[in-house]
């Protein structure tokens, strides 16, 4: 099946990530405004350990492998950046090497 037709929409990625961030990092601050281009890092939303958890979430939720050099502010700095980055990875043509095989267990 063509990956381009099966991957999540960018808006879905952003929405699911926003829900994850709200539930895991902002549960004590429900009034925190979290727009698509508001910074997640250095603003008190996600710290260094939070980044590790966020990467694990993205890998599990969207079944992809994120390489060390991809863990950057450009890719993870905002919900919008995450949406663009994950969308690109999920819909990349070619070998599909960035997609993580689903675990069978």
């Amino acid at each position: 099946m063509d990956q381009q037709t099966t991957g999540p929409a960018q808006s879905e990625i952003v929405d699911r990530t926003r829900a994850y961030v709200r539930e895991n990092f902002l549960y004590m601050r429900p009034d925190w405004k979290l727009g698509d281009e508001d910074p997640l890092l250095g603003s008190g939303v996600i710290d260094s350990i939070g980044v590790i958890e966020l990467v694990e979430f993205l890998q599990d939720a969207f079944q992809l492998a994120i390489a060390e050099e991809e863990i950057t502010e450009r890719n993870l700095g905002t919900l919008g950046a995450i949406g663009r980055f994950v969308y690109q990875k999920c819909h990349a043509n070619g070998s599909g090497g960035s997609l993580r095989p689903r675990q069978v267990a």
Partner: protein
Amino acid sequence: MPCERLGREPTTAPGRLSEAPATDGEPGRLRSFRREDIPEVVALRQQVFQFSERERTERLVAYLERIFYDHPWTQDDLPSLVYEDERGRVSGFLGVIPRPLLFQGAPIRAAVATQLMVAPESRGLVGRRLFRAFLTGPQDLSLSDTANEPARLLWESVGGSVSVTHSLSWTRALRPCRHYASRASSGGAVRRLAWLTARPLLVVADALATRLGGSLVQHAPPGSTEPLDAAVMAATLPRLLGPRALRPVYEDGSLAWLLDQAADKRQFGELRQRLVRGPGGEVTGWFLYYREGGGVGQVLQVAARRSGQALVLRHLFYDAWRGGLAAVAGRVEPAWAAELGAQRCWFERTGPWMLIHSRRTEIMHAIVCGAAFVSRLEGEWWLSF
């Protein structure tokens, strides 16, 4: 003994540090620490950490200068690292201290990481960038032995490992009533008050227990102890350790400086260094530990030929008991675990983690499986910022 994950590669080498601005689109840049950064790093430390053994700024400045610039192991390609934010401010730091070691008789280089700190407004990826840059450096072995939980998670996330055995601590109670009551008293003002009130009674109970005999009595062990200095340690260590795969180099004259710095650590009291001789006068080993009042002595290093471990521990416990301590504690070294257990020490997993990394699996194996002599004097534990 089960071994932890060994020799995992950091997933990507970031390239060596450049003095040029970052070109990968990331804000700020990593660069080598410079002497003129010290005041900014001290200010950052005072912002990030609550505790310091050196309350006055000028004392902390002088200490950083001494530890990072005046140590005997300078290596230009193993610098400490700073993160400079987009406005040019130092808002991240990772201290690095090179240490020469011998592995299977050949010299190798270790780098000890210490004092990871990131300004609150830069938290997110900076700690990770600092650790990644450090772990992909030219050293054969990377170490950090007072790591907290966030540092452990970060270290592991960029390919480092944890030596779980070295992250255990051991304790030997010498005056059990006082010691256990003291432990139980931690955790609230009421419990502390109860402990202070009961303390005279506990002293009597310990004295009574000692008179009654049994395992609580501290008899003078055979042999003797005497003051120990750096020259004797450096000359004797190779003979004591024998074919141990990995060990520090003390013969380069650096040990006297190192012991001076260790003695400067006041958190646990005064540093006591004793050489242990067996009944025939032969050198069996030594112990170095901090002692203060009637509390818990903290062991910096014990060394012995394998057959002498029991005697060295007995002398340590006797010396600490005579010094009025309630207990002695230390970090578990795999090669000592069996003897510590035999001498009624108990083990627990509290306190800092020992983090390790090497691209050479055999070095990792030596550390984790007890073929290495890596005491608190080889990591960062002896430091006192």
